């Protein structure tokens, strides 16, 4: 490989890790302020009780559960997309896989937090874990919530591994070439030397994880949807929910990935690496998912409407023509009507165009979660109990805090680790040459050619 090119790549991709500007601290401070306020709000809620929210009978769930589904959905960005791209050996994946995998892991830390926040007695959350206790009880594995605990835990461990494995050569690179945080990189690099044997093992491990993570990711949003679909409630009890949720999850995941790419491109000066072709390709993926999402949405709502069961129609009307109508039609506009044309035409499928479309999709998918959760709960089967719901400042503050927390963790991640995989990028260069006999640790990042 051209030595000069390798040096340039190394410099560009590790620059965000090594150079810290004022913007970084200001961003962290701003995000930290929002997080601190949200933390106060949560404390307020725990102290006084869930009455400080807008919940009532029958709307026992609201913004928190909508956020739970939303964030678990976001987590499908990553691993699933990067796994699919790896398994299909799409060459253009190289600059976006780690970016996507990091989203997965961090979103998986945010999502389950909302279950914790939503609990009436948060301090007893560990009772859902299977461990021998003085109560002499296992958790109830018939409950879809336990399926969630199991699947999300598996997914978190799996996606952490999947994020970590391809990072090892880059960690060794940082260990050998940076003056700062040596102890961190030395520990995490696990003694990586870049021998052919190590390369062989690493690539095998990555391939295995890429295949394994796909069914795990699918299972996660399937069981999330089953929290709703396994009840008898109108417009929840639907067989389409599992695939509908999985599609929605991948859809919102791709959107947040595009947003992250767009922000990183500017803030980390990665214009040379995140090029229009990447936005074009991911934009096309987003378009495909938008169409599949529309298809599922139509299939779900048209069958309900044609069936015309009174209980179902009460929810249906509340969503499409009642107080939830702005949310519902906002969702349709944000998930399909506006982004689909933008993404369909090559002229508008630019970096700015795909970013704008992605931002809308993120909003639209959040609205979808909200409409699904709240729509059904406001209209239980016994009409005497119908009631509206509106979130309070506590719920909205905690939600804002979660978004800030996610951004905070992501900024921190880009500071500690190269957000674009250095060795994978090098391996993708057309002139990538076979590895030379390893003269020392400086070449530890050179991969084996395919």
């Amino acid at each position: 490989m051209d030595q000069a090119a390798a040096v340039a790549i190394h410099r560009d991709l590790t620059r965000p890790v090594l150079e810290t500007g004022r913007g970084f601290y200001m961003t962290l401070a701003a995000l930290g302020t929002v997080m601190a306020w949200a933390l106060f709000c949560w404390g307020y809620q725990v102290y006084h009780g869930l009455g400080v929210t807008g919940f009532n009978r029958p709307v026992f769930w609201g913004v928190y559960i909508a956020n739970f589904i939303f964030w678990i959905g976001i987590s499908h960005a990553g691993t699933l997309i990067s796994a699919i791209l790896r398994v299909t050996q799409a060459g253009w994946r190289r600059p976006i896989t780690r970016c996507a995998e990091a989203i997965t892991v961090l979103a998986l830390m945010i999502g389950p937090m909302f279950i914790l926040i939503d609990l009436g007695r948060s301090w007893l959350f560990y009772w859902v874990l299977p461990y021998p206790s003085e109560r002499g009880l296992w958790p109830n594995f018939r409950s879809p919530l336990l399926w969630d605990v199991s699947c999300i835990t598996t997914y978190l461990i799996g996606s952490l591994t999947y994020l970590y494995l391809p990072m090892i050569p880059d960690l060794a690179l940082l260990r050998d070439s940076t003056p700062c945080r040596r102890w961190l990189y030395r520990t995490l690099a696990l003694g990586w030397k870049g021998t052919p044997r190590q390369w062989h093992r690493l690539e095998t491990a990555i391939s295995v994880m890429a295949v394994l993570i796909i069914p795990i990711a699918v299972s996660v949003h399937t069981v999330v949807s089953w929290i709703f679909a396994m009840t008898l409630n109108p417009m929840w009890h639907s067989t389409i929910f599992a695939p509908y949720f999985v599609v929605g999850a991948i859809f919102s995941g791709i959107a947040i990935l595009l947003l992250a790419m767009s922000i990183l491109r500017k803030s980390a000066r990665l214009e040379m690496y995140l090029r229009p072709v990447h936005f074009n390709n991911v934009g096309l993926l987003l378009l495909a998912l938008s169409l599949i999402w529309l298809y599922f949405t139509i299939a779900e709502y048209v069958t309900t409407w044609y069936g015309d069961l009174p209980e179902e129609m009460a929810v249906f009307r509340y969503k499409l023509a009642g107080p939830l109508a702005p949310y519902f039609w906002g969702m349709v506009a944000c998930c399909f009507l506006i982004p689909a044309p933008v993404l369909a035409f090559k002229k508008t499928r630019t970096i700015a165009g795909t970013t704008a479309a992605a931002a809308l999709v993120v909003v639209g998918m959040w609205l979808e979660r909200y409409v699904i959760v709240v729509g059904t709960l406001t209209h239980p089967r016994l009409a005497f109990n119908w009631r509206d719901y509106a979130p309070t400042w506590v719920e909205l503050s905690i939600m804002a805090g979660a978004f800030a927390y996610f951004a905070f963790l992501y900024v921190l991640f880009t500071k500690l680790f190269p957000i674009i995989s250095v060795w994978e990028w090098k391996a993708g260069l057309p002139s990538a040459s076979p590895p030379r006999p390893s003269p020392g640790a400086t070449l530890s990042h050179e991969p084996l050619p395919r």
Partner: protein
Amino acid sequence: MPQWGMVIDLDRCTGCNACVAACHAENNLPIAGEEEAAKGRSFHWIRIERYIEGEYPNLKTRFIPVLCQHCDEAPCEPVCPVFATYHSPQGLNVQVYNRCIGTRFCANACPYTVRHFNWFDPRWPEPLERQLNPEVSVRTKGMIEKCTFCIQRIRKAADLAKDEERPVGDGEVQPACAQSCPTDAIVFGDLSDPGSRVSKLASQRRAFRLQEDLGTQPRVIYLKEGSE
């Protein structure tokens, strides 16, 4: 073992709410207050649902007291992650307050919307806090509660019968709602005993169960003549 059940005769119910008040007093239900009640957070383990038919002035108001139906196939039971709600051998749908962590999944799964959540710690305006029933535990914030069929009264009657080495007699257990009903519309007893009053009423031609088509197999049987 007795299989507890209830019959509510809608042709007798006047919608007077005596059962609601009696239940409040017997089971230490918190008083939500005007403001919270307006937000939909009132506590009524039994409530009188009112449905108004027709246009003014030709109105017809129908009442139906709704409480936990103690379903044999209860949708609330399997969804609880911590076994806070389960089915007792005597057919009661039991809520174990101490186990509840407050997911509220059961409340959302219940097709009858009879489960109540403690949004705050319980409050009673003066002097109601002095009349708490010592035989019923007071719930704290963050947990679900609901009708128990006055399990404390069932226990008491069962204990007494055991001491006297005899089965619990028909009519010996009276939940607060049944006891206070001025028109005797609510009858409680052992559905497994064909001779009990509740069994005889339940086998009437007027009998139906609420949302029977859901397959929840409720233990509360309503009586109603066809539309007049």
